[in-house]
C-alpha cells in the first residue's frame, strides 16, 4: 500500500493498490519485462531504504529466491499497475523450507557464520532504532492475535536478540480485515508468506528505493515482507485507523487521510460496494482491486499512512453482510484462488496470481466467495482458523497454501520493514512497551547478578580475610601485586586458543587436522575436492614439507598416505578414530580441543572422571555422535574427545569398537538403491558413525587398546621442543610481569622433561609465592615441577649404572652443594642464602637424581633385584673388590631393612631403601653402556629351592623309621645324601645274577637293602628321543649334586634295571614274609585245634569242607525264617496246613500221573541265556599226584 502510494505519487494520480506478486529473484523487480519497467520503476522509485548487503547475501541463496512482483498500482495507464503478468514465471523457487529452521542446514549457516554475525550489528540498530516504532504497529495485534509465534522462527531470529517481535511477525496476524485475513490465510498455509502480501510489500519496498536498487533487492524484500505488512496495509484501509501522514514518507503519501477520515474510509470500504469512493480503500485493503480501470480512474487516497498516533483504537472485524468481503457461503470455497501448492510450477502460479488479482478487479461480481477467506461459517473443505471480533462476531479464516513457499520469512529482514506499517493500536507504542519490559528485565538481571557477586564477594572476602590473617604477607602481596589476575590456572589462561598457538609438534597437529578435515564430506557435506584448493597456507606448506622429507621419514609418509587415502564407501575416512598417545603434559587434550574447534566442531569430552561403564559409554558415544546440541553450540556438529582412554575398562572400549565397526547402510544401498526394509535400515542408519572421535591415551600399549590401535589413526606425540616451550614460557612470564631469563626457563623445561603443564604450573606457583624473578636456583630447588614420573625398570637400572653423559651443564651453571646437604638430603629446604652459597656438585646432583629416580620407580624389589643381578657383570675397577663388598653390604642392609620394615610393620624404615640404588650408582656407575639383563636369579633360586625341598620331603617321608630317626632333613642333605650316592653305585658285573659270586650277591643284597631303607628305587622313564632310562626316584641327585661339577660315572642301564628288579623282588618278598608272619599265628592255632581233635592233616581238610557245608546250611536256615506278618508276629499257617493236608493227596495223584520228574523233582534247570558258561574248575596238579 505504501508502495502504491509512492508509486502514485510520481504519476500524479492516486495509487490504488500495490499488488504483491511473486517474482523471480534472478530477474529483479525491474528486469523482468522491459515494457513494464517503467511503471515498475515508477512504483519502485520512491523510497527504498537500503538493506544491508550482507544480510541479503547471507539470507538469500544465490539461486533460490521467491520471486515476487511488486506491482505498484501505479497509475501507469496501460498496465493498471499490473506488472505481474510479464514477469517470467520461472522461479527456481526459494523454497520455503530454505529458511525453515528445521531444514536449515547448519553447515551452511556455519559457513556464513561470520557474515551473519557481521550483519547483525548493522541490522540491529536499524531495526531497533527508527524502525522499532514501526514494529509496534505490527506488534500489538500481532501479539494479540497471533495464536502462536510458532513455525517460522528461523535460526536468524534466534541469533538476533529481539527475536520475539520478529518472529511474531511471522505468526499469523489474524487480520482485522478480510483481505488481510485472506492474505494471511494464504500465507499461513504456505508458511506465512502470501503472494498478495508480498506483492504489496514489495511494492512498498520498491517504492522506497531507487528502481535499480529495488530491482536488485527485490529478493530481499521477499524475505522481509511479511503478511503483517499487508495486514497493516489492509488494516488501515479496512478500519481506517491509519493516519494519513506517515512520518517517514511524506512525499510518498499523496492522498492522506486523517485518522477520522481513514476510519470513515475504512468503514466505507468495508461497508460499501466497490463503486463507492471508499471502495478504493477496500481495494487497497484487499490488494486485489488493482488494475481495474475503473478503480484506476478514481482518485485514490486509500493507502493511508500510518501515523504515529497514540490513539486508542478498537479494531473491529466487521463482518456485516453487506460488506464487500462478506463471507461467501462455505460451499463455494475459494478453490480457484488456492494457489498451486508447489513452487515448482511457477507458470501456474503466475497464471493463478493474476487470476487471483484479476478476480479482485471485480471482487464481488466475479466470485467474492472465492476471494474472501473470511467466512461466517466454518468452511467445509478447508482448514480454517476461528477469529472473534471484539464485537463478538465470529469469523472463520480459510487457511490456504502459500504457493510460493515463501511463507517463512526471515524475521531479521523484516526488522526495518516493520516500521513502515505503523499502526498505533495501543496508546503507548509497542516499542516503548517492549523497551520497558526489556529494561525491566535487564534491570532485574543486573540486580540478580550484582546480588550474586555481592554474596560471592562477601564469602570470598571472609575467606580471604581469614587467610590473610593466617598467611599474611604473600596474600597481601598478591592482592596488590596482581589484583587483576583471576584465580585461574595459567595453564588454562594461556592455553592455546587457535591452531597457530599450539606448542605441540607441527606434524602431529597437521595430521590430526587433516584427519578431522576428512570428515567434512560426511559431517558438513562439503566435498573434498572443492575443499582442497582452499586449505590454508599451513596445510599447503605441510604438504610440501611432508613430501620433501618423505624420503627418510617413513612413518610420517605412511601417515600422509593414510590421510590422502580415499574415503570409504560411506565417505568417511578409513580410520574412524584418531588415537593420540604420549606422555602427560604434551598438550594432547589441548590439541584435540583446539583442532576440533578449528574444524568447526563442538567438542564433547569424556574423560576419566566420567562414568565409563559400558552402558554409560555407549550412551555417551551415541549422544555425541548422533545428536547435536540445539542450544549454545550454535548447531555445530559434535566431535567426541575420549580422554585417558587407556584407563577405560575393556568393555567400554569394546563398545567403542562396536560403534566403529557398525556397517552403514551404504553397503545395502550399493546393493540395491531401494532398500525398503523399515526398522532394520533405520537402525543401521542411526548406528553409522558420522562424527569423528578422538581418543587420547598416555600408554598406547595397554592391552585393552590393542584392537583400537589397529583401527585408529595413531598419532604419537613427540616431546615438545624445548625451544618452543621456553619461548612460550617467556611470553607467559612477560605477560605476568615475571622476570625470567631463558636459561632458567630452559632449566625448568629440562627439569620437567618438557612437560608444558608442569612448567606453567611451576611458573605460576613461583609467581604466586611472590617471586618476580625466576632464577636457575629457584628452578633447581623447587620440587613443584617434579611429578611422579615412572620410568621403566631398565631405564632405572641404566641410570644407576651409567654416568650421565658428559652433558652441557645440567642446569645452567654447575653449582656445588656442600656435603652436609648431601647428608641432610634436603638441599632445597633452605632457600635462603645458605642454599645459595652451597650449590650442588655434580656428584650430589647425580646422587639426588638417582635418589629421585629410585624413589619414583615403583617396583622397588625388582629394582634391587636387577641391581643385584647385574652389578657383578659390570667392569669392576678396583681389584680388591672393595666396591663389591660394599655393595653386598648394602644389599644385606637392604634386606635387613625391608625385612624389619615388613615384619614389624615399621614402614618408616622404607625411606632408607632408595639409598641402595644411589649407593650402587656411586659405587659402580661408569660411562660404559651396561648390558643389563632382567633379573631372574631370584626366581630361579626360588624355584629350585622349592623343588629340592619337595624332593627331600618325599625322601624323608619314605624313609624307614629306623633310618629316619637319624636323618633330619638338614642332616640328610648335608651329610648323608652325598655319600649315599656313592654307596648306591657299586661296581656290578654286567652278567646275570646267577653267575654272581656269593660276595657279589651279598653286595647286591646290601645295596638293595640300603635302597629300600631309603625308599629309593630306579624307575624306568621314557626320554623324549624314545630311549628308556632308569632314574633314581626320588631323584636325590638333584639335591646334593652341583650341576657344574662333573658327574660321577653312572651305573649302566642294565645294572639299574637289575637293581630295580631286585628291589621289586625284595619288596615282594618282604611283603610276603610280612603276610606270612601275620597268617602264621592263625595257622598255628588252627593246626593246634586240628591236632587236638584228630591229630592229622587230612581231617583238618575235611573239617574245612565241613565248615563250608555248615556255612551253607546256616545260610539256608536263615532263609527259612518263619514268616511274619505286618506287626512282626509269626504267622502260623494253620489253615493252609489243613488245606494242604486235604489237597495233598489230590496233588499227589496228578503228580503221579505226570511223573515225578515234572514239577516235583528235586532238581531243576536254570537256563543261562546268551553265554556259554562252561563249567570251569581250577585243577591243581598236586591234586592229580
Amino acid at each position, binding site marked *: 500500500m505504501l508502495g502504491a502510494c509512492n508509486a502514485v505519487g510520481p504519476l500524479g494520480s492516486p495509487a490504488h493498490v500495490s499488488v504483491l506478486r511473486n517474482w523471480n529473484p534472478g530477474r529483479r523487480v525491474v528486469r523482468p519485462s522491459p515494457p513494464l519497467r517503467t511503471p515498475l520503476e515508477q512504483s519502485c522509485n520512491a523510497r527504498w531504504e537500503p538493506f544491508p548487503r550482507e544480510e541479503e547475501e547471507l539470507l538469500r541463496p544465490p539461486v533460490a529466491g521467491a520471486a515476487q512482483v511488486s506491482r505498484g498500482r501505479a497509475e501507469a495507464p496501460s498496465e493498471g499497475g499490473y506488472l505481474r503478468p510479464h514477469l517470467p514465471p520461472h522461479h527456481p523457487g526459494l523454497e520455503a523450507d530454505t529458511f525453515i529452521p528445521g531444514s536449515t542446514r547448519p553447515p551452511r549457516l556455519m559457513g556464513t557464520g561470520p557474515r551473519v554475525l557481521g550483519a547483525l550489528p548493522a541490522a540491529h540498530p536499524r531495526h531497533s532504532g527508527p524502525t522499532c516504532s514501526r514494529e509496534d504497529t505490527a506488534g500489538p495485534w500481532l501479539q494479540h492475535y497471533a495464536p502462536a509465534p510458532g513455525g517460522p522462527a528461523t535460526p536468524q531470529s534466534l541469533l538476533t536478540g529481539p527475536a520475539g517481535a520478529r518472529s511474531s511477525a511471522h505468526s499469523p496476524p489474524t487480520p482485522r480485515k478480510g483481505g488481510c485475513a485472506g492474505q494471511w490465510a494464504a500465507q499461513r498455509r504456505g508458511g506465512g508468506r502470501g503472494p498478495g502480501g508480498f506483492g504489496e510489500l514489495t511494492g512498498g519496498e520498491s517504492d522506497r528505493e531507487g528502481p535499480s536498487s529495488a530491482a536488485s533487492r527485490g529478493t530481499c524484500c521477499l524475505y522481509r515482507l511479511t503478511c503483517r505488512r499487508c495486514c497493516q496495509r489492509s488494516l488501515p484501509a479496512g478500519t481506517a485507523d491509519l493516519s494519513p501522514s506517515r512520518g517517514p514518507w511524506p512525499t510518498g503519501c499523496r492522498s492522506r487521510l486523517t485518522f477520522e477520515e481513514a476510519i470513515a474510509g475504512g468503514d466505507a470500504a468495508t461497508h460499501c460496494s466497490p463503486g463507492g469512493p471508499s471502495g478504493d480503500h477496500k481495494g487497497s485493503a484487499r490488494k486485489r482491486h488493482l488494475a481495474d480501470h475503473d478503480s484506476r480512474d478514481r482518485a485514490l487516497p486509500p493507502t493511508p499512512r500510518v501515523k504515529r498516533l497514540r490513539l486508542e483504537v478498537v479494531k473491529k472485524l466487521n463482518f456485516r453482510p453487506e460488506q464487500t468481503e462478506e463471507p461467501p457461503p462455505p460451499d463455494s470455497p475459494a478453490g480457484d484462488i488456492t494457489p498451486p501448492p508447489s513452487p515448482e510450477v511457477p507458470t501456474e502460479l503466475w497464471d493463478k496470481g493474476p487470476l487471483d488479482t484479476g478476480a479482485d478487479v471485480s471482487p464481488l461480481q466475479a466470485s467474492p466467495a472465492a476471494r474472501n477467506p473470511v467466512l461466517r461459517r466454518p468452511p467445509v473443505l478447508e482448514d480454517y482458523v476461528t477469529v472473534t471480533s471484539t464485537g463478538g462476531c465470529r469469523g472463520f479464516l480459510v487457511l490456504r497454501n502459500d504457493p510460493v513457499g515463501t511463507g517463512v520469512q526471515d524475521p531479521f529482514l523484516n526488522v526495518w520493514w516493520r516500521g513502515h506499517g505503523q499502526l498505533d493500536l495501543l496508546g503507548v507504542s509497542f516499542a516503548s512497551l517492549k523497551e520497558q519490559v526489556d529494561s525491566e528485565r535487564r534491570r532485574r538481571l543486573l540486580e540478580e547478578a550484582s546480588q550474586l557477586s555481592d554474596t560471592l564477594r562477601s564469602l570470598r572476602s571472609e575467606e580471604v580475610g581469614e587467610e590473610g590473617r593466617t598467611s599474611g604477607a604473600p596474600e597481601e602481596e598478591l592482592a596488590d601485586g596482581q589484583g587483576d589476575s583471576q584465580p585461574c590456572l595459567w595453564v588454562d589462561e594461556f592455553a592455546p586458543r587457535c591452531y597457530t598457538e599450539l606448542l605441540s609438534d607441527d606434524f602431529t597437529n597437521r595430521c590430526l587436522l587433516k584427519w578431522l578435515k576428512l570428515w567434512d564430506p560426511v559431517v558438513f557435506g562439503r566435498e573434498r575436492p572443492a575443499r582442497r584448493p582452499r586449505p590454508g597456507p599451513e596445510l599447503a606448506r605441510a604438504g610440501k614439507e611432508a613430501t620433501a622429507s618423505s624420503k627418510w621419514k617413513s612413518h610420517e609418509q605412511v601417515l600422509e598416505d593414510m590421510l590422502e587415502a580415499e574415503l570409504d564407501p560411506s565417505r568417511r575416512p578409513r580410520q574412524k578414530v584418531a588415537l593420540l598417545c604420549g606422555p602427560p603434559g604434551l598438550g594432547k587434550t589441548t590439541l584435540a580441543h583446539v583442532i576440533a574447534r578449528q574444524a568447526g566442531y563442538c567438542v564433547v569430552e569424556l574423560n576419566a572422571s566420567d562414568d565409563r561403564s559400558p552402558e554409560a559409554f555407549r550412551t555417551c558415544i551415541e549422544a555425541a555422535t548422533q545428536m547435536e546440541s540445539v542450544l549454545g553450540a550454535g548447531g555445530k556438529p559434535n566431535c567426541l574427545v575420549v580422554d585417558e582412554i587407556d584407563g577405560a575398562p575393556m568393555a567400554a572400549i569394546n563398545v567403542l569398537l562396536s560403534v566403529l565397526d557398525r556397517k552403514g547402510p551404504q553397503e545395502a544401498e550399493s546393493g540395491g538403491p531401494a532398500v525398503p526394509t523399515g526398522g532394520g535400515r533405520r537402525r543401521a542408519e542411526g548406528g553409522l558413525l558420522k562424527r569423528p572421535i578422538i581418543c587420547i591415551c598416555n600408554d598406547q600399549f595397554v592391552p585393552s587398546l590393542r584392537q583400537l590401535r589397529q583401527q585408529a589413526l595413531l598419532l604419537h606425540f613427540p616431546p615438545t621442543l624445548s625451544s618452543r616451550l621456553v619461548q612460550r614460557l617467556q611470553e607467559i612470564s612477560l605477560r605476568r610481569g615475571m622476570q625470567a631469563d631463558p636459561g632458567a626457563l630452559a632449566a625448568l623445561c629440562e627439569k620437567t622433561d618438557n612437560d608444558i603443564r608442569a612448567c606453567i604450573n611451576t611458573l605460576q606457583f613461583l609467581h604466586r609465592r611472590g617471586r618476580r624473578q625466576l632464577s636457575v636456583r629457584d628452578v633447581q630447588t623447587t620440587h613443584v615441577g617434579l611429578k611422579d614420573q615412572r620410568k621403566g625398570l631398565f631405564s632405572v637400572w641404566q641410570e644407576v649404572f651409567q654416568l650421565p653423559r658428559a652433558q652441557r651443564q645440567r642446569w645452567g651453571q654447575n653449582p656445588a652443594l656442600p656435603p652436609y646437604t648431601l647428608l641432610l638430603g634436603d638441599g632445597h629446604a633452605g632457600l635462603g642464602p645458605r642454599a645459595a652459597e652451597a650449590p650442588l656438585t655434580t656428584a650430589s646432583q647425580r646422587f639426588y637424581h638417582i635418589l629421585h629416580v629410585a624413589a619414583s620407580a615403583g617396583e622397588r624389589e625388582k629394582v634391587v633385584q636387577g641391581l643385584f643381578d647385574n652389578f657383578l657383570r659390570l667392569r669392576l675397577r678396583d681389584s680388591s673388590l672393595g666396591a663389591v663388598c660394599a655393595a653386598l653390604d648394602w644389599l644385606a642392609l637392604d634386606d635387613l631393612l625391608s625385612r624389619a620394615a615388613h615384619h614389624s610393620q615399621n614402614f618408616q624404615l622404607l625411606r632408607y631403601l632408595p639409598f641402595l640404588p644411589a649407593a650402587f650408582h656411586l659405587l659402580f656407575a661408569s660411562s660404559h653402556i651396561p648390558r643389563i639383563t632382567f633379573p631372574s636369579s631370584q626366581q630361579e633360586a626360588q624355584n629350585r629351592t622349592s623343588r629340592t625341598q619337595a624332593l627331600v620331603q618325599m625322601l624323608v617321608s619314605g624313609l624307614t623309621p629306623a633310618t629316619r630317626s637319624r636323618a633330619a632333613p638338614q642332616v640328610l642333605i648335608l651329610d648323608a645324601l652325598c655319600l649315599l650316592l656313592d654307596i648306591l653305585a657299586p661296581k656290578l658285573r654286567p652278567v646275570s645274577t646267577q653267575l654272581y659270586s656269593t660276595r657279589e650277591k651279598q653286595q647286591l643284597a646290601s645295596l638293595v637293602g640300603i635302597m629300600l631303607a631309603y625308599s629309593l628305587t630306579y624307575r624306568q622313564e621314557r626320554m623324549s628321543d624314545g630311549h628308556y632310562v632308569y632314574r633314581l626316584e626320588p631323584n636325590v641327585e638333584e639335591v646334593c649334586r652341583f650341576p657344574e661339577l662333573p658327574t660321577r660315572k653312572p651305573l649302566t642301564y642294565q645294572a639299574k634295571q637289575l637293581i630295580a628288579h631286585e628291589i621289586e623282588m625284595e619288596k615282594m618278598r618282604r611283603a610276603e614274609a610280612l603276610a606270612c608272619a601275620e597268617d602264621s599265628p592263625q595257622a598255628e592255632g588252627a593246626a593246634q585245634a586240628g591236632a587236638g581233635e584228630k591229630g592229622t592233616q587230612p581231617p583238618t581238610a575235611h573239617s574245612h569242607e565241613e565248615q563250608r557245608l555248615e556255612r551253607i546250611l546256616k545260610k539256608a536256615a536263615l532263609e527259612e525264617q518263619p514268616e511274619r506278618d505286618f506287626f512282626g508276629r509269626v504267622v502260623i499257617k494253620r489253615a493252609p496246613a489243613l488245606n494242604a493236608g486235604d489237597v495233598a493227596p489230590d496233588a499227589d495223584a496228578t503228580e503221579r500221573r505226570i511223573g515225578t520228574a515234572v514239577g516235583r523233582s528235586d532238581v*531243576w*534247570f536254570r537256563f543261562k541265556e546268551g553265554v556259554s558258561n562252561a563249567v570251569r574248575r581250577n585243577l591243581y596238579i598236586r591234586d*592229580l599226584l
Partner: protein
Amino acid sequence: MVQIIISSAGAGGLAEWVLMELQGEIEARYSTGLAGNLLGDLHYTTEGIPVLIVGHHILYGKIIHLEKPFAVLVKHTSGEQDCDELGCKTGTQYLVTALIKNKILFKTRPKPIITNVPKKV
C-alpha cells in the same frame, strides 16, 4: 618230573559214556546238593533228537561227535595193592574206565511244562 601212569583196564571192554552239556545250571531244591538226586528223564525222539526233562522244563538238544574224545580216568592212590607192579614211586595211577566220543548239547531255551492247567480256562 611228574609221571602220571595211565592204564586201561581192558582193551576191548571199554565203556562208552556220553557227555551232556547244558547251557545253564542244575540246581537242587534243597541245600543238600545234587548228589544222589535224579536229574531228569532223557528221551530220544523218533528222529533221534535227545529230549531232556528236568523239573518242569523240557529241553531239546542234539548229539555232537567230539573231535577229540575224552577218556574217563579213575585215580588209584598208592597204598593199594595193585600199584606195585607199575613201580610208581608216588603210588598213584590212573585207570581208563570209559571213553567219551559223543556229547549231547542242550543249548536252546527250555520249554516249560505246565502240569496243573486250570480247567475253567
